[in-house]
C-alpha cells in the first residue's frame, strides 16, 4: 500500500469505536454460541446477528440465552431486562456461567482494560495490587469466560493498554506462554483473537505470544508496533481487512443511535 492510499484510507468516515465494533463483529460466525460482555462485544455480536449471523446465539452473564437486543435499547450492563429482549431462555447467572464450564460456548467475547503479550487481561488493579494507583471494577465473569472458552478480545489499541506484563492477571490468557495455561489447570479454551482499531491479532502456536494477522485499511505494522508495549510477532503474510461497508456502519449506528458504546 502506498503512502497515498494509506492517507486516503485514513480519511475515513467512521470513528475508531465504530471500526472496532465492525471488525470484531466480522470475527463471529453464523451458528456459533457466543458469550458476550457489555459494551463493544454486545454491540458487535448484535451487529453480526443482523448482518451475517441470524443463527448466532448470544449469551449474557446476567442469565440470557439467544437474545436479540433491540436497536436503541442497549443495556447498561448484561444484567438488565433489555438483555433478555426476544431471548429464547432466561436462567440464573450461575447457570449461564456453568454453560462455559460444561463446554456449550464457542466464543467468549470481551473488552479489556489492559492486555499483555500472552493475552492475559487485567481489569482489577493499575499499579501494585496491594497499593493500586487505580482500583478497577474487577473480573465480573471475565475470569470464568477466559478460563473456560476460546476468547475474542476487542479493545482500543494504545501502548498503555498493550503492556509486556499486566499488573495483575484478572482473566488468564496463556499466562506465561508455552504450556503454562494448561499446566495451571486450564486445559480448555484460550485466546483466539485480539481485535483493535488497528489490527487483528492471533497467538503463536508454540510460544503463545501475540501475533499480527491482519491490518485495517491504512494501518502499517510499524504503527501497530508503535502502539504496543511489547515486541509483536507478525504472520508471514499479513492480510488487510476490508474497510467497514456502508451497510455495516448503517446498521451499527441504528443499533446505537445514542452512541452509548460507539462514542
Amino acid at each position, binding site marked *: 500500500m502506498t503512502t497515498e492510499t494509506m492517507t486516503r484510507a485514513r480519511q475515513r468516515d467512521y470513528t475508531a469505536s465504530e471500526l472496532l465494533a465492525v471488525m470484531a463483529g466480522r470475527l463471529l460466525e453464523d451458528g456459533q454460541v457466543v458469550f458476550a460482555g*457489555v*459494551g463493544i462485544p454486545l454491540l458487535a455480536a448484535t451487529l453480526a446477528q443482523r448482518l451475517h449471523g441470524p443463527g448466532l446465539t448470544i449469551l449474557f*452473564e*446476567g*442469565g*440470557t440465552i439467544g437474545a436479540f437486543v433491540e436497536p436503541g435499547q442497549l443495556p*447498561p*450492563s448484561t*444484567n*438488565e*431486562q*433489555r*438483555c*433478555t*429482549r*426476544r431471548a429464547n431462555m*432466561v*436462567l*440464573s*447467572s*450461575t447457570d449461564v*456461567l*456453568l454453560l*462455559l*464450564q460444561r463446554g456449550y460456548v464457542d466464543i467468549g467475547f470481551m473488552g479489556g482494560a489492559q492486555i499483555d503479550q500472552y493475552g492475559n487481561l487485567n481489569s*482489577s488493579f493499575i499499579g501494585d*495490587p496491594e497499593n*493500586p*494507583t*487505580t*482500583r*478497577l*471494577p*474487577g*473480573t*465480573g*465473569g*471475565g*475470569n*470464568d469466560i477466559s*478460563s*473456560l472458552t476460546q476468547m475474542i478480545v476487542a479493545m482500543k489499541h494504545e501502548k498503555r493498554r498493550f503492556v509486556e506484563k499486566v499488573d*495483575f*492477571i*484478572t*482473566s*488468564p490468557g496463556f*499466562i506465561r506462554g508455552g504450556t*503454562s*495455561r494448561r499446566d*495451571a*489447570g*486450564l*486445559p480448555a479454551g484460550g485466546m483466539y483473537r485480539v481485535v483493535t482499531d488497528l489490527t487483528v491479532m492471533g497467538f503463536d502456536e508454540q510460544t503463545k505470544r501475540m501475533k499480527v494477522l491482519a491490518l485495517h485499511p491504512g494501518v502499517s505494522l510499524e504503527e501497530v508496533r508503535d502502539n504496543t508495549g511489547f515486541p509483536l510477532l507478525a504472520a508471514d503474510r499479513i492480510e488487510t481487512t476490508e474497510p467497514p461497508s456502508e451497510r455495516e456502519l448503517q446498521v451499527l449506528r441504528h443499533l446505537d443511535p445514542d452512541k*452509548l458504546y460507539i462514542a
Partner: protein
Amino acid sequence: MSEAYLELRRRTAERDRSLREKVMSLEEAAALVKDGDKVGIGGSTLSRTPMAMIWALIRAGKKRLSCSRSIMSSEGELLFGSGASEHVLTSWFSQGIVWGVSKVMRLYTESKRARFEEWSHMAVGMRFKAGAMGVPFLPMRSMMGSGVLARLPDARQIDCPFTGEKLVLVPALNPDVALIHVQRCDAFGNAQMDGLQFMDIDLAMAANRVILTTERIVSNDQIRRAPDQTKIPFMAVDAVVEVPFGCAPHECYGVYEPFFKHLDMYAELIRKDPAKGIAHYLDRYVYGPKSWTEYLSLIGVEEMLDAARRGRRIHDD
C-alpha cells in the same frame, strides 16, 4: 469436626418455619439485621436491587455490614459512603460501564477505608450454591492461574480424587441475612420472580435469614394456582415488606427499568467530588426523606412513570 455444619443447622432449626404471616415495615425488617452481619444482596448491577431495604439499613445506622453480591453497583457505594459497610465481596463493583469507573468505589478501596474482596462471578455463585446445598464447598474450573485466585486464601486448589486434574474448591457462603426484592409474594413469603433471577434462589437458601421486599403482596391462593412459579419457599423467609418501586433507581424486571436520569445525576455528583458527592446524595435521598414514598417523590413522578412505561414493555411484540 462437624461443628460448623451443626451450627448452620441449629440456626435454621431455631427459625420459625411454620406457615405464618410475616408482613412488616422496612423499619421492623431493618431491626432484624445486626451490626457486623454478613449481608447477601439479591439482584445484580442495576437489576432487582433491594434498594429500599439497603436504604432502610443505612437510615437505621447499621455498621460493619459485610456485604456480598454477584455484582455491586451504586448500592455498594451508598453502603461504603454511609459507613454501613467496610467490606464487600463481589466479582465486579462500579456503577455501570456507561458511567466509567466509580469514583466512590475507588476512593474507599484505594484509601483502604474499605475492602473490595474480588472473586470471579461464577465463584460467587458457587459459594452461594454450596451454602444453599448445605455442603462445605463446591468444585469449579476457573480462577486457576490468575491473580484473583492468588489473593483468596479461602479458596483451595486440589488434584481431583477421581481424575487427577486440577480443580478449585470454593467454600460455602452462608450470609447471616439475605435481602431480596421480588415482583410478588404472599404474606407467608412464597416468592415468585419474573425474568432474570441472578443468584437469588441460592442466596435465599444459603442465608440464615431472608428479608423479602416485594412490589406487591398477593394472596396465598394466587401462589397456589401456579406453585411451579414459586422460587423461594415461605419457610426460608423471615420478613415480608411491601415496597412498590423498591428497587428505584435500579430496575425491577417487567415492572420498571432503571431511572437513567437519576443515575446520570448521581454519577455526575460523585464524578466531581466523590466524598462530597456521596455525602450530599445520602443527605438528600437517604437521610432526608421521611419515608420511601417521600424518597420516590424526590426522584419524581415523571421518572417513575417513564421507568414503569419502559419496564412494562419488555415482551411487547
